[in-house]
């Protein structure tokens, strides 16, 4: 499997740390030193489906394909206004696709998990060209009265078109059941038989625990995948990590090794866009010609669950 086209889309509205300091108990220095985030894009006039369609069409065009040549649509999304139907169903027609698709929710690790599924589908001969779309609006489930979560997130979509090839080398998935570290609980309809009504609440995060688990498990995934391939950090051109927090990325780098240049970031501009963060960054890096054939790239993502996932590529065009 290899990636032959990428696309990304971000909301038009840019919100800086100073903008947030206007109504939250925070300031630019606090946010920047603890997260590395300087600004983020937030949905305002457009909706998530617009971003999803935009990113997808760009990826299909970049791949040199027509929408009817896509055999399957895999969507990673944590939450959007529709619990059902799936986001894949909602955007399928607008992208111009005629194929089937499905949604997965593996939190911020959704992209790498979707790659694993796409790889399996191709190996099983079920699809030749697969569109993986990660579309996320985490700012819609944050509590905007407090600073702990709301300053961290941004909205966005990233998409890749995958086809047959030998670039995708390996994948490592981890799941450690621990709901309390990070969760968003939605409200449910009441029934006459309800004993314990769940009202729902915005995203709850135990920051320090999450930070610790993310650094530890992501590093473990990466080291596992390097060991299996008989590689060291010196062999890797880029470690493309989920853009959750610059300090987490730095923590992982200190364990895995290698200079900062090998750990690209876009979190400064976009905040944490959940599962869309890696495909958005990949799209930018390819547009900037930062990736060349033969580059060995590790992707690693982690999030609510706790889940984490890493994969290894040897880049082909």
């Amino acid at each position, binding site marked *: 499997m290899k990636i032959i086209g990428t696309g990304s889309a971000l909301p038009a509205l840019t919100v800086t740390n100073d903008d947030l300091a206007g109504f939250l108990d925070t300031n630019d220095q606090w946010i920047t030193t603890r997260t590395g985030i300087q600004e983020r894009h937030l949905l305002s006039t457009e909706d998530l489906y617009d971003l999803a369609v935009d990113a997808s069409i760009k990826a299909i065009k970049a791949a040199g394909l027509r929408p009817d040549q896509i055999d399957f649509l895999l969507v990673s999304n944590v939450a959007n206004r529709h619990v059902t139907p799936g986001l894949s169903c909602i955007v399928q027609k607008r992208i111009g696709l005629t194929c089937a698709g499905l949604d997965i929710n593996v939190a911020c690790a959704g992209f790498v998990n979707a790659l694993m599924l796409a790889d399996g589908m191709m190996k099983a001969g079920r699809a030749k060209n697969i569109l993986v779309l990660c579309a996320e609006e985490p700012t819609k489930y944050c509590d905007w009265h407090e600073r702990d979560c709301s300053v961290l997130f941004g909205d966005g979509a990233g998409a890749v078109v995958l086809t047959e090839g030998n670039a995708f080398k390996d994948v490592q998935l981890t799941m450690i059941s621990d709901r309390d570290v990070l969760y968003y609980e939605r409200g449910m309809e009441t029934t006459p038989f309800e004993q314990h009504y769940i009202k729902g609440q915005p995203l709850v995060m135990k920051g*320090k*625990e999450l930070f610790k688990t993310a650094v530890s498990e992501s590093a473990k995934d990466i080291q596992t995948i390097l060991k299996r391939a008989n590689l060291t950090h010196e062999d890797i051109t880029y470690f493309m990590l989920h853009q959750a927090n610059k*300090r987490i990325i730095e*923590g992982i780098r*200190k*364990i895995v090794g290698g200079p900062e240049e090998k750990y690209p970031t876009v979190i400064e501009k976009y905040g944490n866009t959940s599962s869309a963060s890696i495909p958005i960054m990949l799209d930018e890096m390819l547009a900037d010609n930062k990736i060349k054939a033969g580059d060995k790239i590790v992707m690693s993502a982690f999030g609510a669950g706790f889940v984490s996932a890493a994969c290894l590529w040897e880049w082909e065009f």
Partner: protein
Amino acid sequence: MSRIQEKTRALVASKMKLDESEVTPEKNLFNDLGADSLDFVELSVLLEREFNVKFTEDDTAKVKTVADLYQLIEKYTSK
């Protein structure tokens, strides 16, 4: 100084970009050595990996000084 203390001191110095001679037992990790809460979490991960232990939140919450850190690791490694 024990091997555990030497390793711990080296990790603290490396993490906080300090000379090892500055990492003395009475120093407060936060007020004297400049660590913030995330530095401390990162340090915990590095120490857990180094000594193959898993700290509880309750125990790490009590750590203020380098000496506290030595005691914490000695407690876990002697289990």
